[in-house]
């Protein structure tokens, strides 16, 4: 009998806990109109502004967990030194882990806050850096 009343009391408490939510402010963020910005957000990968500093070391390629996302081709410049010809990143395969940006010694690769890119053509999702 005591148990029974304890159940009823806990039931009433439950009702009031839920009911008290009515006067709280909703925690919803109205997404397309308002966006939550975060400084550590891992969004679309991109190249740093300004002159291309990439040394074609290939670290980004080796740390990328999604194999085949980053492709690097090299060429030889006047002093027969190996330099970057083209670095392409296939965003449709990128999982936005941020490894490449973290490990890039020249900070060529950066992560942006843009997390809602899309395209109707897969070709558009390949970004290229040329020297």
């Amino acid at each position: 009998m005591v148990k029974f009343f304890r159940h009823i009391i806990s039931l009433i408490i439950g009702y009031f806990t839920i009911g008290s939510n009515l006067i709280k402010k909703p925690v919803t963020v109205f997404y397309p109109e308002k966006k939550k910005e975060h400084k550590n957000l891992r969004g679309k990968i991109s190249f740093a502004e300004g002159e291309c500093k990439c040394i074609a070391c290939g670290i980004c390629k080796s740390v990328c967990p999604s194999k085949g996302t980053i492709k690097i081709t090299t060429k030889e410049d006047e002093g027969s030194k190996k330099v970057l010809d083209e670095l392409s990143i296939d965003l449709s395969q990128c999982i936005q882990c941020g490894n490449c940006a973290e490990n890039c010694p020249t900070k060529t690769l950066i992560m942006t806050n843009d997390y809602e890119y899309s395209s109707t053509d897969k070709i558009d999702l390949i970004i290229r850096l040329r020297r």
Partner: protein
Amino acid sequence: MNYFNISYFPDYVYIPLYYLIGFIVVAVLMLFVVLFLVLLERKLLGFFTVRVGPNRVGFHGALQTVADAIKLLFKEDIIPLKADKLLFTLSPILVFAPIMTVWAYIPFNGFFAVQNSVVGSLIFLSLLSFPILGILFAGISSANKYSLLGSLRACAQTLCYELPIFISLLSVVILSGSLDLNDIVSAQSINNNCFGWFIIPSLLGFITFYISSVAMMNRVPFDFPEAESEFVGGYHTEYSGMKFAMFFLAEYASMFILCAFMATIFLGGFLSPFGKYISDFLPLSDLIKTPLIFIEQFFWLILKTMVLVVAVIWTRATLPRLRIDRSLEFFWKLILPLSILNIFIVCLIKLFMGAR
């Protein structure tokens, strides 16, 4: 009712016309109520869980359910290959038709109920136990294990909630001495205020009736016939388009009408809680007052119903789903004895207090 009896037409025109008008009133009312209820439920559930609910279509999401209804209308109607086509098509109608019919028996105000009957309350509850047939057929004909399990659960549940519901109704019948819903309401007007309502002598009956009718509406915490997290959608897993919409409509329509029924038999129906109607105090001539009282009585009934509906939604936001065996145990071992105990209490009250 009496208003329509002054017939200028011969019988063969008058009777079909009367029922046609009744049908249209009920159908339109039902459509609006269901559209409103779905919106109300989604909004309230949103608020209860510290969200905002639908807010895109129309003003604060006011047109959301209209948009949903249009979407359902244009959806493809799929019948599974192995389904029994006749039963599959028949079952939404079997669920929907009785629930729509019972709307005719509620006295919405002192002058208008589409159908008066000496055994109104009995017919009401009997018709409401029909949909279980449709649910069973839906489960059998879908050729789907989830549907079958859902409908079997629904049947097991029906056995356990029907008994307390009728016994609780019996307490009201003992108090009022009549099965006619109009008489039940007028029997509650004796004290001329809310102390005459049957919820006071028969509080226990109200509680058991309420819990049983939550089970009758197939709602949380007794919603295992259609438990989404356990078996997809229960008996309506295979349904789409208009047929699904009929199940959906039936669920919300039965929720409203059962609450209206509870308001009628326990909370004084269309009576004002203060005994006198507000319209009575207005300095108006009788000619305007009479229709005003119509509207006010309707308003009181809807208000009481809405309080009960909100309580149902609140329950949905609070409680988790019970396990099927626990729920059957709950009904057989607790609710049924309580409702029988209630009969004793009510009989004693009737005996010692006389003409209550």
